[in-house]
């Protein structure tokens, strides 16, 4: 309960007023006034229709909004007498907001929500991204039900996405988490997810979590903590996910908060993952993840150019990170013409594993290692797009599955290079 110390007195007082709750709905926000109103309305409707007898509370952890986000959330609590769309609430839906800092910090936001969950002794919690405008009541129910009624500790989402949306997830995070941790979780970097109070308490008690407070990628840490802690995990299909608008320059921060977190976790979880082989299916509610095929404009030439430039300019950096064989292979494919270019799956997997081992050994500054991966990832994206340009949903799914199998096949190689410097 030392988490209480970092919560403000006012927030603690509000939590004490609530007492205990069954369901907690966490909203980490920062200037999300445009979208948060409809999200809270959806939450409200979902609770009224699907969980009318449960004690529910919305916890907003705000990172210093100045657009009235907090007021929008707290203004939408439900009193226990007011009817909404013909449905009467049997319980009060509390909505509490706290500002944990004056600037957004992903780790602090989740820590606030987890601490509130622990203090309120909730059975089920969900965290919803304030950017998810397309959220529906069914999404929320799909995340709460497995925890509340079926005893699962973590519910990861799956979505229908465009075949070229989330390429870091399909080309690195999903296959690597699956191969290394033996968990087939499609969306390793979760923007919406559900979890139990038990998992929240476990995660809050981890030392490495305390070390990483304030860092990004805490959702991924939570997922890996659930996997390594032997918690019950399932996936729920939520529906179509709209792509989040990102600029090309956002790739490095994205790599830091996803791949960087994964590489760091590999170090502390070595004792667990080194003994895992294979990857059993994770129970999935609803349909499986589907791939959408609408035409999408992509500047392939730019991806190829940035790969070629990266390999040529960063050769000295790669020599510190990668084996000589991998460096020479990269130089060979960088010399190919655009139409002949191919970054094969095996070379990509070796590259990623060597980067992970270099990160563990801190061969050079760890952030530099993550930054150096960006141009190579662009090369892999180029190949993935070319290979799947005309592919049907099934063909693309098969290609992703083959990449996952390649990651699993080469796991002994990761173990070899991981131990080589010890």
């Amino acid at each position, binding site marked *: 309960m030392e988490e209480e110390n970092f919560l403000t007195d006012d927030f603690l007082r509000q939590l004490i007023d609530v007492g205990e709750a069954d369901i907690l709905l966490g909203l980490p926000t920062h200037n999300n006034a445009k979208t948060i109103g409809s999200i809270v309305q959806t939450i409200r409707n979902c609770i009224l229709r699907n969980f009318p007898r449960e004690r529910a509370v919305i916890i907003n952890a705000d990172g210093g909004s100045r657009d009235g986000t907090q007021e929008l959330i707290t203004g939408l609590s439900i009193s226990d007498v007011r009817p909404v769309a013909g449905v009467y609430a049997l319980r009060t839906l509390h909505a509490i907001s706290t500002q944990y800092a004056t600037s957004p910090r992903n780790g602090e936001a989740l820590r606030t929500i987890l601490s509130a969950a622990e203090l309120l002794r909730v059975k089920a919690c969900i965290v919803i991204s304030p950017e998810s405008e397309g959220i529906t009541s069914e999404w929320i129910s799909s995340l709460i039900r497995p925890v509340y009624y079926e005893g699962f500790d973590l519910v990861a989402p799956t979505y229908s996405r465009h075949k*070229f*949306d*989330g*390429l*870091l*997830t399909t080309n690195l*995070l999903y296959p690597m988490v699956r191969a290394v941790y033996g968990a087939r979780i499609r969306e390793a*970097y979760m923007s919406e997810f559900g979890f139990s109070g038990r998992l929240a308490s476990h995660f809050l008690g981890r030392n490495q979590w305390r070390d990483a407070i304030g860092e990004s990628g805490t959702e991924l840490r939570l997922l890996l903590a659930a996997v390594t802690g032997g918690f019950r995990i399932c996936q729920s299909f939520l529906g179509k996910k709209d*792509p*989040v*608008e*990102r*600029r*090309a*320059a*956002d*790739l*490095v921060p*994205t*790599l830091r908060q*996803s791949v960087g977190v994964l590489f760091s976790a590999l170090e502390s979880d070595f004792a667990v993952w080194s003994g895992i082989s294979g990857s059993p299916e994770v129970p999935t509610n609803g349909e499986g993840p589907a791939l959408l095929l609408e035409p999408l*404009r*992509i*500047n392939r030439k*730019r*991806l190829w150019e*940035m790969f070629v*430039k*990266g390999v040529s*300019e*960063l050769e000295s*950096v790669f020599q*510190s990170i990668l084996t000589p064989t991998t460096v020479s292979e990269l130089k060979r494919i960088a010399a190919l013409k655009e139409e002949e270019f191919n970054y094969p799956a095996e070379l990509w997997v070796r590259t990623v594993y060597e980067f992970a081992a270099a990160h563990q050994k801190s*061969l*050079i*500054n760890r952030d*530099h290692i993550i*930054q*150096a991966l*960006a*141009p190579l*990832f662009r090369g892999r*994206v180029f190949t993935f797009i070319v290979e799947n340009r005309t592919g049907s949903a099934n063909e693309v799914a098969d290609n992703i599955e083959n990449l996952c199998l390649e990651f699993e096949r080469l796991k002994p190689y990761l173990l070899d290079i991981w131990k080589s410097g010890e």
Partner: protein
Amino acid sequence: MREMIISELSQAVHELAKGFAHYLPRLIVMLIIAGVGWLIAYVVKALVRSILQFIKFDRMAENAGASQMLSKVALPSATELLTRFAFWLTWLGFLLLGASVLGIMGLQEQAASFFLFLPRLFVAMLILFFGVLAAGFSARAALLAAVNANVPSPKLLSLAVRSIIMVFVLSVVFEELGVAEQTMLVAFGIAFGALMLGLAIAFGIGGRNLAQRFLEEKFVRLNKERDEDELSPL
């Protein structure tokens, strides 16, 4: 006359023998100090080598780019170089200490000034080491940032960052050592000014097209690229 010569000669031999007898113990003490100093220097050498190997100093030097610099000028590894340096510094200290026992005025002054110089030498070495580390780190950071931002000529940018930091570090090191302080200050001013002027001229006149392309890419083509290449990685 003959007796006088014999007397003077015997007195001179006597004086010589007396002087030799006076210096012999000191010489022996000096040799003992030198011998013990060699042993201590040897132990220091082994100790320094163990510490440097334990902290993986060679890897640090390699990461900072110092190893590459050393191998270019046919010097041994950073660990070996520092180990030898520690050995010779320790032994030289003992040799000067031993020499001072002989009571030779000039040598005593030299020994005293050597021991006074040691702390400054140590600080200068420390500044140089961390300076090389900082230059290597910053140059690599600039290179990676430039490559990922698709900035033209990333290696040139990285080299410029390394050069600026190294010029600054060297000027501080020479100032600490007290070697040609004024000259180094002026040299630093000239070198730094020339570098900045050179960059300004190169970017303004020589690299006019490059600058135009850079600015266009930064402010005009950005929106176009946004429309064309909006892949969400996660």
